[in-house]
């Protein structure tokens, strides 16, 4: 691991990668607790996988794939959210369909572009080492937007996340705030694409927040701990994968899973000594 820290001072791409990991940690640390306590990980997974469709279409037409990802994520969030609120019974089917359709569209469009197959793997599994420097600004901008919205509207979002029926009875526009929450989750998914890829997004969105939930009992505190934990896990994952030349995304996810396993065992022991 010391090799990584020596290289960190020498190579700018590693500094960019570290910064990208830390910026993604802010997004998943802030949004992860909402996903965990509202139990909408499957829904977040549907949004994440539908993103590939947007990226494929954008690449095919020569546009920035990140813009394609952003548009697809937001559209998927709005569609899933609307169906969830209005046709409760078919929610699971729609998420499953969007999950597969998004992937299928993405793979089809990307397959029509010569020489892009390598990029497909990096979108699916992420490659934090290939984050262009200009995208750090994009990530920082998304973080700032997430933090500002959550800081200003946490009470309304909390009311909807905690008890939708009571929020509706209090005259709160539940549809608006629920869709806002899903759009924020969609933005977080886009933030995490380069770090862990579409397939592994769920791990960073849920595991640090779930670990935090084992030790603290308020959503703002969960956000702080999940952010710090995500930052630590992405830095460690990057460092541990550097010397053996392993892909950092899966290394970060496996570290998060290991941390969750250990934490769950420890918290069980605390509860039942």
């Amino acid at each position, binding site marked *: 691991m010391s090799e990584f820290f020596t290289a960190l001072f020498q190579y700018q791409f590693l500094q960019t990668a570290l910064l990208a990991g830390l910026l993604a940690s802010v997004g998943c640390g802030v949004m992860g607790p909402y996903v965990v306590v509202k139990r909408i990980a499957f829904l977040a997974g549907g949004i994440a996988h539908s993103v590939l469709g947007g990226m494929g279409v954008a690449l095919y037409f020569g546009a920035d794939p990140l813009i394609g990802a952003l548009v697809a994520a937001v559209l998927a969030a709005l569609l899933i959210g609307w169906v969830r609120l209005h046709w409760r019974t078919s929610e699971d089917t729609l998420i499953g369909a969007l999950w597969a359709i998004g992937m299928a569209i993405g793979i089809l469009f990307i397959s029509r572009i010569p020489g892009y197959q390598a990029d497909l793997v990096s979108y699916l599994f992420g490659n934090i080492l290939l984050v262009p420097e200009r995208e750090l600004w994009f990530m920082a901008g998304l973080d700032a937007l997430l933090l500002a919205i959550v800081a200003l509207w946490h*009470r309304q979002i909390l*009311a909807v996340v*905690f008890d939708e029926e009571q929020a509706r*009875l209090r*005259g*709160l526009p539940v549809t608006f705030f629920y869709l806002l929450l899903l759009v924020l989750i969609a933005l977080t998914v886009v933030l995490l694409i380069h770090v862990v890829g579409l397939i592994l997004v769920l791990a960073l969105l849920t595991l640090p927040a779930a670990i935090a939930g084992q030790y603290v009992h308020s959503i703002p505190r969960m956000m702080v701990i999940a952010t710090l934990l995500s930052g630590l896990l992405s830095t460690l994952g990057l460092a541990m994968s550097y010397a053996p030349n392993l892909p950092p995304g899966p290394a970060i996810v496996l570290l998060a899973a290991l941390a969750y396993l250990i934490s769950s065992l420890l918290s069980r022991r605390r509860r039942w000594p």
Partner: protein
Amino acid sequence: MNPVIRMEQVNFSYGEEPVLEAVDLSIFEREFLGIVGPNAGGKSTLLKLILGLLEPDSGRIEVLGTTPKAARHQLGYVAQHPGFARDFPITVQQVVELGLVGRRPGRSPLATLLPMRVTPDDRARVQQALEEVEATGLAHRQIGSLSGGQLQRVLLARALVANPRILLLDEPTANVDQRAESEIFDLLKQLNERMTILVVSHDIAFVSSYVTRVACINRTLVCHPTADIDAELIHELYGDKVRMVAHQHHT
């Protein structure tokens, strides 16, 4: 005197299955109405129609002189099954504070889109609501650590904190012991001095000792003064033999 809730010829069905038929009901200010009837008789549906959570197939519902949706921020509601997970990371104080998030009388509905902060006035109201239900000591407890009776008190405080004109409760004592049940109904009796109360219960003998009128509902609705409740009436309503239990009527 105008009723605070007026239902005229209300019909409601879930798909093909009729749940309520030709329901007429007028409830007046400061009434304490018990709604009783067998399972699947339409008790909870009646409350949800009044709250505007369900729309009737036909008929008219007026609450506080307007539609249920327009009036519902002036109603307090304690649901039969809380709409949250018991392990949600939130304290009692925060749960009651959420009862204040939403539309406030005299303000535009658009104000609910503006950022909201917990003000010192909000904290004072939460404290007052918790005092009223005798749950001040629970303020910093996690919601998941409460007993059934304590949770009902907290949910009652959440319903009261916005100072509703009408309080609706759906089986508020279904998961509590007998002592807690009496304590909750004693509390409701006190609250009835300043607000109209509708309470759904399966326990006709118990509620009839507290309420001013009983609405018996089994698809259709019949109202009775509490003194008229007898074995024959209960047999008609539930379709089975029941044992009468002697009890005192509160005045």
